[in-house]
């Protein structure tokens, strides 16, 4: 079966778990036969968007570039996964409007106090100390999506739970096929077989 491309766009505060989830979803989709590319915000800023800063204008340019590449990939039947803070709603909605392939927004929610506590990259500490300026959630705004296709919460869910939730939503949206093995349990399978046998279909 040919697989269709789409853009899966993770948005959320720094450290919320966008990259972790992008990689988990990538792995699962590859196992189901999809071609997948992840555009990670941190990595993109070292090449595609090298030299851009964190002003609103630069942030918007960064997101437009990621959105552009995602759409190029998606319309060639690749699943393009973007993992970037993308704090401004307007620009995310612009990407949604102009992309030609389906655009799925996944909001990775996590309360700021949990993130400060977690502070995996040590950035919140520095931002709160004033060493980093324009840090989203500290002295730069974050505009949460109004109605994302899928909402996960990394303070209450395990990464595996969240990834599972995202995959299920993609199945619901008919962008991804249900796992063949997991669709019915073995017991159910044998009942189905018996019923079909009784009518001569197996």
């Amino acid at each position: 079966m040919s697989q269709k491309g789409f853009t899966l766009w993770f948005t959320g505060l720094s450290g919320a778990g966008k990259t972790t989830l992008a990689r988990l979803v990538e792995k699962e989709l590859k196992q189901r036969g999809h071609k997948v590319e992840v555009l990670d915000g941190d990595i993109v800023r070292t090449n595609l968007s090298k030299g851009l800063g964190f002003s609103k204008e630069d942030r918007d340019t960064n997101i437009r570039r990621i959105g552009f590449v995602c759409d190029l990939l998606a319309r060639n039947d690749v699943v393009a996964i973007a993992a970037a803070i993308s704090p401004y709603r307007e620009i995310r909605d612009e990407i949604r409007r102009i992309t030609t392939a389906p655009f799925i927004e996944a909001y990775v929610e996590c309360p700021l106090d949990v993130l400060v506590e977690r502070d995996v990259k040590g950035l919140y500490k520095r931002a709160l100390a004033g060493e980093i300026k324009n840090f989203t959630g500290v002295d730069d705004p974050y505009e949460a999506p109004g109605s994302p296709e899928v909402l996960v919460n990394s303070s209450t869910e395990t990464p595996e739970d969240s990834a599972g939730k995202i995959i299920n939503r993609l199945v619901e949206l008919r962008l991804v096929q249900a796992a063949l093995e997991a669709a019915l349990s073995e017991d159910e399978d044998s009942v189905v077989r018996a019923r079909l046998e009784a009518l001569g279909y197996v």
Partner: protein
Amino acid sequence: MGLFDRFKSKAAKRAVIIGLDGTPYTLVRRFIEDGTMPRLAELAGRGSLLQMDTSVPDISSVAWTSFMTGANPGRHGIYGFLDLQPNSYKIFFPNSKHIRSATLWDAVGKTGKRSVVINVPSTYPAQPLNGTLIAGFVAVDINKATYPQELVPELKRRDYRIDVDARRVQESHDALMDEILTTLDRRIKTLLWLYDSQQWDLYIGVVTETDRLQHFFMDAIFDEQHKYYSAFKDFYSKVDRFVGEIASRLRDETMILMSDHGFTKIEQQVYLNRWLVEHGFLKLKENARSIEDIAAGSLAFALDPGRIYINTKERFPDGIVDKADSSKILAEIKVGMSEITAGGASIVKRLYERDELFAGDCIDSAPDLCIQSVYGYDLKGAVNKTQLMDREVFTGMHTQDDSTCFINASADEIREGKPHITDIAPTVLAAMGIEQPPGMDGRSLFRNSGN
């Protein structure tokens, strides 16, 4: 009421679909004429009763999926009750999660309208919708068959049965008939209860017992001396009373009564894999039970009912046929199978190559060839047979060109051309004033509709 309001109310009507699984158009005509189905006769007098084509293959999983999506299997991806996993001979049973097209009730739900969908085959496990759904064949667990879950206790209290247990035929035909009648009674009670108690804009209720009756008792209705002749007619009288119950509830809804395929008597079951073995196309391991036991060196194999697959290198793990040779093998099989005869006549009505039947994103999992037999010769995919033809416990087989389609609209409102099962969804959307979404292959039966 002004002209505009009249138009508006007409264009945005509610709709009712009653499905009678496997009920042939010709049988309905006969029962209307001989007085077995007086209520349906009365209803038919107020609308158009038509003969309809269904999908190829003409089995319920494919046909009902084509009904609910308005699409061909090349789009929706369901080609049979069983299929093979990608790049494998391993069998799996497709379910609702494998359907790759949106459904009629998805389109209705998008406009904020509610659907009640009861006992449509191939909807298991139940998927969320704006409304209520109880999955039909092959649903296993009532909890997974029902959306929303809150309905389950009441269904249990009412002893709702998802399906006839056809294995009761091993006990006796009397036991099976009793099973069919009991299940029908409970089905009808539940169908009417939900019709009356739920809020809906689109109601779909399917009776499956018609199909089960006909699989095991089809010979009875062609023989007045048959032990079950009157039981068969009594069964359809019950169905007629149910149709009457629905008809009496109609206000200004558009009503469609339809079947997913027809039925006829079986003369012989024909085992296509046996033919492929005998003619050197297929090699099986010893004591093979299913196509999973295919042996090395095979050129082609069959899956139920008449699906033929060329064992190509690019598609199957032990494939031996080069892509370039595929059409040659296909041609040999077409010629050879056309020459399968019984009583001096070919049992094959038509052979369709893949692209004659299917188009869409799921084309890669389509069979390479679909064979349609003449009435009486039921094509099967069994691999454990030692002769080409035989009789089994079944006395009825499906037909592709004799489905039932009644719509409560006069002949001059209906367009030319024989209806196809994929036309039902666009017709219902047109009646409800909803635009037909892209991805539906059928077209509305109404002469004047956008769809």
